[in-house]
């Protein structure tokens, strides 16, 4: 809406505000993708004690009927046939006197040759989250450091322009100011009350 006040009465901020809004809007759009990546990954990695944010780890038990083939490779073929596993083993070896381990791409089978009991364990990469965590934790390094720094810069600009975007009662001198104070108070109080680092 055009400012009804005469041009000479407009303050610097009034004149800047449309530009700040435009900047805030466009940087906001640009930051959406990375914000989703960092936020999802942040939640995932925060709770690393409760789950593996990168892999779906699984374990299962199976039973093979006796007798089992005496040859390790024949035993592996027999197991894969019985469990209808189409993958090709990467390794087959004696992991103990009475135990044969069969390794595949994302899982392993450990067969007790005396009882036919089979323990399966494996890891399936989590769709999207593994990549998000990889980016968030900057495991890729190299150019990603610049992208992440740029994104952090965008967030700072978004915060700064957001502060002054709205004039009046809902802006920094009204409700906006209270909300900013609350937002700042959370980390300050937490550090103060917890004793800090």
């Amino acid at each position, binding site marked *: 809406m055009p400012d009804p006040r005469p041009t000479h009465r407009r303050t610097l901020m009034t004149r800047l505000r449309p530009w700040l809004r435009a900047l805030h809007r466009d940087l906001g759009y640009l930051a959406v993708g990375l914000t989703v990546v960092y936020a999802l990954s942040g939640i995932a990695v925060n709770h690393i*004690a409760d789950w593996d944010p990168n*892999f779906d780890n699984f374990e299962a038990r199976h039973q093979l009927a006796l007798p089992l083939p005496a040859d390790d490779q024949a035993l592996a073929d027999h197991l894969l046939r019985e469990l209808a596993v189409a993958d090709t083993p990467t390794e087959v*070896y004696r*992991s*103990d006197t009475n135990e044969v381990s069969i390794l595949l791409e994302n899982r*392993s089978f450990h067969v007790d040759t005396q009882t036919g009991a089979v323990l399966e364990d494996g890891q399936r990469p989590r769709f999207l989250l593994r990549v998000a965590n990889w980016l968030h934790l900057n*495991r890729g390094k190299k150019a990603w450091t610049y992208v992440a720094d740029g994104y952090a810069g965008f967030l700072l600009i978004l915060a700064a322009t957001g502060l002054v975007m709205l004039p009046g009662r809902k802006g920094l001198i009204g409700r906006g100011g209270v909300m900013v104070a609350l937002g700042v108070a959370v980390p300050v109080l937490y550090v103060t009350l917890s004793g800090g680092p």
Partner: protein
Amino acid sequence: MATSKLSPEVQSSLTRRSFISRAASGTVIAAMGGGMCYALSDRLTREARAMALDDGRPRLPPGQRALEALRPMGGTPGSPGITDFRLKIHGEVERPFELDWAGLLAQPQAELELDVHCVTGWSLLGAAWRGVRIKDLAAAAGLKPGARHIVFEAAHGYTANVPLREGLDPHAIVAHRLDGKPLARPHGAPARAVVPSLYFWKSAKWLIGIKFVARDEPGYWETRGYHNHADPWLEERYA
């Protein structure tokens, strides 16, 4: 109705107030329910807190909760196979050497019941680990007098530093079996370090090297704000 006489602004405020109060009530109820489940399910922790180690320290370090099984804590997996497994013993030693899988199994094996403590707050007590004592590997390599620290080297460049005292403790091993089974993939198969006297991130998974050094070399997490020593009983979690 009385509300019908109110202005739309007041009505909107009431709706907002009602939404906030309902959301707050829901949050409190969910938190109480979760807390109750947590308290009821924590028998293991209560039992562990009643136990003490031979030296008088509590068996469960402060701030820890006992679990029934090891939790996978992430990390970039190395190869779980044994064909390409190599463990390099090097650094401040007279006779550096490398072990393949058969070589590792040919070393004197230790069967130990160990407690391990994760910096995130869980502990696994009394699990049966099998592996080779690091002090035996150090003796085989001929440790030089100048060696002061051990750096565990793992897949994808992960490292963790451990003082020689904790690393050469008879309970510190290169483990390849847990509870009678080969080490599972998420736990560092085929072999990992286990140093039970320090927080578990020091016990590098997918181990490929043990380097003895004269000067300390903080590892992956130690250079990212975690404590350089990491004694669970002193709660040395962060630097």
